[in-house]
């Protein structure tokens, strides 16, 4: 008998099969993930969890006998009152309340758990940051050397010995440079004949041979400057791996809890999304009434302030923060603004101007989210800020604006904003 302790063995034997399964059911799982996430609070969105996919999609069919019709026999234990010949009313077909599906297949949905990572991956699948390519070109300030073949001149520190020796060897072979061993062997032979004596002719011939070889060795150098190679580097611009996200929000009295909640959900999604694309993501909260201030998260969402509404102040504050701390050459800048659409009418021209000249040129993306309550008539007049922004968004590519009035719209709107081109078409179809 052997006893083997397998407990220390590397685990995760089933990991590969598990991944295969998820890949197999990817379309189904993705749909399930989206559905599941709609029901969750935003804090839990990045948590993994139970996913239910229809059993039909991951079915393994076999040839088996049907559950309907025919003559069936059963032997059961625990008879109490029946005697031979008794009739028993047939229990309701497919009853039992086991949740048999309507088509009589009786197989329940397939339920399993996803890890946080897997969940988020599927959740944010085929979303993409807009204008990433542009920034990569723009961000030339930081470059990274990348190996790119060899060259024949360069600093000694980048000398490639292996390549140099390879060239040297082929040149020496081609020019038939005698090897030191050959010369040594010849010298030994001469010395031996010398000692023996009496081979004068032979010794002379050998000496000539030796001299010729030594001359050739001098003529054909071991390493020629022609052989030398240096490693070549290209300077590739490095994408900026950090991003800052500006959250701008109107906190004047007209913004109620519901609206703030919508805004918060949108910010959270954006934060999650950025966090997966960049190594480091900073968040700056700027709230404004008739004046704007940078605040911490707690204050941003929870404290109340009264006053009028002047949007341009927030933009000014944002421009100031960018200048102070987040130079556009080193940071990817994203901004999301949430508002109920109120603005002091006389401030609108100023706002547009600021946006066009100071903010949008620095930003990767500027999203404006107008939060409100669902109206029964479905429409409602466009607010003054909306009208003003529409003019900008029409011409600027990196600005988008959407209206949201219900929690369930947040995710679709978010997807719409960041969907890849292909996925966009699919979503519209």
């Amino acid at each position, binding site marked *: 008998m052997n006893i083997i302790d397998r407990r220390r063995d590397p685990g995760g034997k*089933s990991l590969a099969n598990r991944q*295969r399964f998820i890949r197999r059911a990817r379309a189904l799982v993705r749909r399930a993930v989206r559905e599941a996430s709609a029901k969750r609070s935003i804090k839990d969105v990045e948590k993994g969890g139970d996913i239910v996919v229809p059993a039909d999609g991951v079915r393994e069919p076999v040839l088996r006998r049907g559950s309907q019709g025919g*003559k069936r026999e059963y032997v059961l234990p625990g008879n109490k009152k029946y*005697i031979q010949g008794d009739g028993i009313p047939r229990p309701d077909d497919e009853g039992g309340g086991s949740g048999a599906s309507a088509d009589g297949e009786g197989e329940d949905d397939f339920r399993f*758990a996803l890890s946080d990572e897997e969940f988020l991956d599927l959740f944010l699948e085929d979303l993409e940051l807009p204008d990433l390519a542009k920034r990569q070109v723009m961000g030339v300030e930081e470059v990274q050397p990348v190996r790119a073949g060899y060259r024949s001149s360069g600093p000694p520190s980048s000398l490639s010995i292996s390549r140099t020796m390879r060239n040297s060897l082929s040149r020496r072979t081609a020019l038939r440079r005698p090897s030191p061993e050959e010369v040594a062997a010849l010298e030994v032979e001469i010395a031996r004949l010398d000692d023996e004596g009496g081979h004068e002719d032979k010794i002379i011939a050998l000496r000539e041979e030796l001299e010729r070889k030594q001359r050739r060795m001098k003529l054909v150098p071991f390493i020629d400057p022609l052989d030398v190679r240096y490693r070549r580097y290209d300077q590739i611009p490095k994408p900026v791996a950090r991003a800052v996200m500006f959250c701008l929000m109107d906190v004047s009295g007209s913004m109620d809890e519901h609206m703030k909640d919508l805004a918060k959900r949108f910010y959270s999604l954006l934060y999650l999304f950025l966090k997966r694309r960049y190594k480091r993501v900073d968040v700056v909260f700027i709230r404004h009434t008739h004046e704007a201030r940078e605040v911490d998260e707690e204050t941003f969402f929870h404290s109340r302030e009264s006053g009028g509404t002047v949007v341009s102040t927030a933009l000014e504050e944002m421009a100031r923060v960018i200048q102070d701390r987040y130079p556009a050459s080193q940071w990817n800048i994203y901004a999301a603004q949430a508002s109920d659409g109120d603005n002091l009418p006389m401030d609108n021209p100023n706002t547009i101007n600021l946006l066009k000249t100071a903010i949008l040129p620095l930003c990767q993306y500027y999203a404006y989210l107008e939060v409100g309550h669902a109206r029964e008539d479905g429409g409602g007049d466009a607010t003054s800020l909306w009208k003003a922004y529409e003019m900008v968004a029409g011409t600027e590519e990196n600005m988008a604006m959407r209206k949201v009035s219900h929690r369930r719209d947040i995710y679709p709107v978010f997807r719409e904003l960041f969907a890849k081109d292909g996925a966009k078409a699919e979503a519209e179809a």
Partner: protein
Amino acid sequence: MTGNAMLTRDRKTRIVDAPERGTSSLLYTGADWNFETLGRVFDAVREIGEGEIGLDTYRTQIEVITSEQMLDAYSSVGMPLFYKHWSFGKDFVRNQMMYNKGYQGLAYEIVINSDPCICYIMEENSATMQTLVLAHAAMGHNHFFKNNYVFKQWTDASGIADYLSFAKAFIAKCEERHGVEAVERLIDAAHALQSHGIHRYPGKRSMDLATEERREKERRAHGEALFNDLWRTVPQAKGKKPATKKKLDEERRKAILKLPEENILYFLEKTAPRLQGWQREILRIVRLIAQYFYPQRQTKMMNEGCATWTHHRIMTRLHEKGQISDGSYLEFLHSHTSVVMQPEFDDRRYSGINPYALGFAMMQDIERISLTPTDEDRSWFPDIAGNGDAYGTLKDVWANFRDESIISQYLSPHLIRRMGLFHIVDDHDVEEMEVAAIHDERGYREVRRALARQYDVARRDPDIQVVDVDLAGDRRLELRHNVVDGITLEEKDADRVLQHLADLWGYEVRLIEADDHTVYAEHKAEPMRPFA
């Protein structure tokens, strides 16, 4: 079809031992154990198993694993290594979730029919549970694997580990060469037909030349001995025409292809016109693994009965010999009784007959019959009643029967009464279900026959055979489901499987469901993405 997993734990119980009275013969005290304890326990268990009962086992290899590893083992049908496929991942995520949520416990052990016999035991079992598990798996199942005739006939315990490792490597190589997707699709199709990739009868051996010649001689001698010229003059019967050419062709065709053939995967492997070598090999792998598990399906109840009876006897003997404490014995009994619990048919927990319960009850009953028979037993089982050799009788039964045959042979009226077994018939054409037999004098044989039929694997699986294919013509593959009792195939599933079959075969496939009088249904499938 796993390696035999013992019934899952439903509740965690640990009975605290009473303070021991300085006894030194105890194998362990308390719930903790280490490898030394395991060794000691195994020796004690083997002393009883082999020494007293006379079990004959493979060498044992005990492997201690964690619960995560147990989950892993679950999803590869209990085998230590297996090829990769998404369906195992599906099982894994389901089991993992059921386990994490607490809907389902894990087995205490898994035992594999191999030589050496591998027993996986969980690290979190208490010392008593480890003793129980070793008695159950390393003695009971192990003996059964080594001695039962179905296992002997169909499986090669010493070769399975090597074969699985070959299969795994081969399939991985195919994935590298032909792409994961292509291989996965092929395995999907093969899995769909896996239940019909089994040889149920040992194949005919082709004879060597010497035997053939001898037989030919005997035949000729027989013919000469019976020769009578008169037969030539007997006129032919009027109505009987000589077989037509077409009919002959068909017969010849079937003979060449050895049709009808019930092992569909085997038939495809040998005959499918468009498959490539590696595809045939993968079909073969799936088929051989199904064949390896076939005995387990045929002997589930007996196998568990044998193991359960063995652990019960060994644990009792250990207690009698003072090697385990009263507390441990009570802990064992608690676990044992929950394993062999049989809810009655009207109980909410009822979900079929518990193989552990029936198996254990039958083994106990056979022991009783051979030691202290009643008059009834003497008239029903004259060959074993009162023979006084319970161990010998049981070992004989374990070696020479399977579920279906042991029930039809040894299910006693005593046990039928005790379990209150009754037989009902549910005919779809009749208004009510009928109680056909109960546990009374008139019903014993009927109940026994019906229960045996219920355990007949060949009856449970639909009987589907490849009946014809015209390789020279349109190559359509004809299958026939021989319908029993008017029960047809699950339609949606059948169509899906047939689609896989058509893709494998490469041409049209037709499945007819019929019995001698009626044609119930016809399924057809054209290849959509044929393998080639």
